[in-house]
């Protein structure tokens, strides 16, 4: 119950703070603009594409690329949203207050994580609504779109956990955001060198986020990819809980 109380409190704070609204509005406007551009290109090439036997359709040329753009924005948006979740609370003396209410560190972290997740999934739903608005007028590859949406949901969930872990460790929200951004980019492009050298398998490719996101965006749902995201989120949340628990010891 106390985790739920933390979630309610955090959601309320997200709802009334301008940062979440500004980020939401700007990113949705940017994505809507991209959606119209991609849709225009698709409509222009539609007749030519229809002649191809296995030609890409609306899902491949509009819906999935739009989600890929959302992923790029998420690298910046998630650290900004999560930066003050714990670092800000600690700076203002509110983390001590929450611990002084007898709340378990796991309830504090999971409550805040759930609130972040609600916001991010609502964001994803609004972006998905753009291509889905034309579902009645075009043929959507539902399987491919569902896989891409699952990939995005897993990406957002793991980025939120990473952001919270950075916020738990950092002394200042800005440091938390910077560290989360650097770690996210490092995780995403970890295997860039290996790919340029033509190495397609190996540990470095397994570690890289892009190796697990790309198949999902292509419509391939494989359990190792899903497990990778779940594992990343679990490890980050465990780290955040451990750090908050240590707050009572460290002071």
């Amino acid at each position, binding site marked *: 119950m*106390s985790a739920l*109380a933390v979630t309610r409190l955090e959601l*309320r704070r997200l709802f009334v703070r301008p940062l979440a609204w500004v980020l939401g509005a700007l990113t949705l406007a940017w994505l809507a603009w991209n959606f119209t551009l991609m849709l225009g290109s698709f409509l222009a090439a539609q007749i030519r594409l229809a002649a191809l036997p296995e030609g890409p359709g609306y899902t491949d040329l509009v819906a999935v690329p739009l989600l890929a753009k959302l992923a790029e924005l998420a690298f910046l948006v998630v650290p900004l949203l999560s930066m003050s979740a714990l670092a800000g609370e600690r700076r203002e*003396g509110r983390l001590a207050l929450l611990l002084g209410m007898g709340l378990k560190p796991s309830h504090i972290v999971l409550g805040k994580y759930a609130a972040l997740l609600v916001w991010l999934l609502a964001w994803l739903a609004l972006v998905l609504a753009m291509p889905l608005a034309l579902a009645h007028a075009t043929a959507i590859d539902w399987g491919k779109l569902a896989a891409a949406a699952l990939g995005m949901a897993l990406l957002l969930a793991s980025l939120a956990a990473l952001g919270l872990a950075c916020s738990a460790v950092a002394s200042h929200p800005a440091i938390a955001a910077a560290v989360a951004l650097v770690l996210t980019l490092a995780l995403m492009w970890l295997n860039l060198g290996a790919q340029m050298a033509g190495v397609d398998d190996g540990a470095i490719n397994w570690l890289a986020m892009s190796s697990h996101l790309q198949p999902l965006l292509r419509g391939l749902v494989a359990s190792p990819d899903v497990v990778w995201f779940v594992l990343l989120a679990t490890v980050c949340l465990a780290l955040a809980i451990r750090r908050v628990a240590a707050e009572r*010891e460290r002071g």
Partner: protein
Amino acid sequence: MTLPQPLLKLEQASRRRAGRPAVQGLSLALERGQVLGLLGVNGAGKSTTLSMIAGALAPDGGRILLDGVDLAEHPALVRRLVGWLPERAPLWQELTVGEHLDAHGRLRGLNGAALKQARTRMVERLELGPLERRLAGVLSQGQRQRLGLACALLHQPALLVLDEPGNALDPVQVAALRGLIREQAAAGTAVILSTHVLAEVTAVCDRVAILHDGTLRHEGNLAGDDHAALERQFFAIATARAAA
């Protein structure tokens, strides 16, 4: 015949902060309905002691017993039994006074009618009615303290821990605060009040404990208007090191 156990008992509680001992071997006991004044100069260890009692900080030595139960083994006990107002009431600037009360109530496990009742009681008692829709970020220091007090008292704790609650209050607000403390004590709530204002202690406390350099230097009952005696005692302890 068994003696009733104190609500709060500190047994040789110690805590290091920033590499130095902030509190050393502190032993104290507090019964229900008692008001204990915790006196000391800045850095004496008052806030560290209160943070430990509130469960926000774990002692590195000794034990803290709440209602006979070790706080280290059952940290969630403070949720029901303790109300804590830290030195600068930590508030969420973007939330209103009413939202603070609701959030604190829910975090303490209050819901539905019980939460509504507790909120109404606190709004009336601390005269927060006109401020209910105001954002915490625009409150004056005195209003912040009142809101912090309301949040600490919302769940009717058995032990109220106040860290310099009189800071930034005007004389009228100080008088109201003293009235509230007496009222809580009369209702059976144990109160610990940290301050460096001696008049605050003589006005509302039954007992006094003087901390210096993290150790308990004096503990005793306060009998009536012995302000001058307390002042002598306090200055003797606080200036002993300088004199030495």
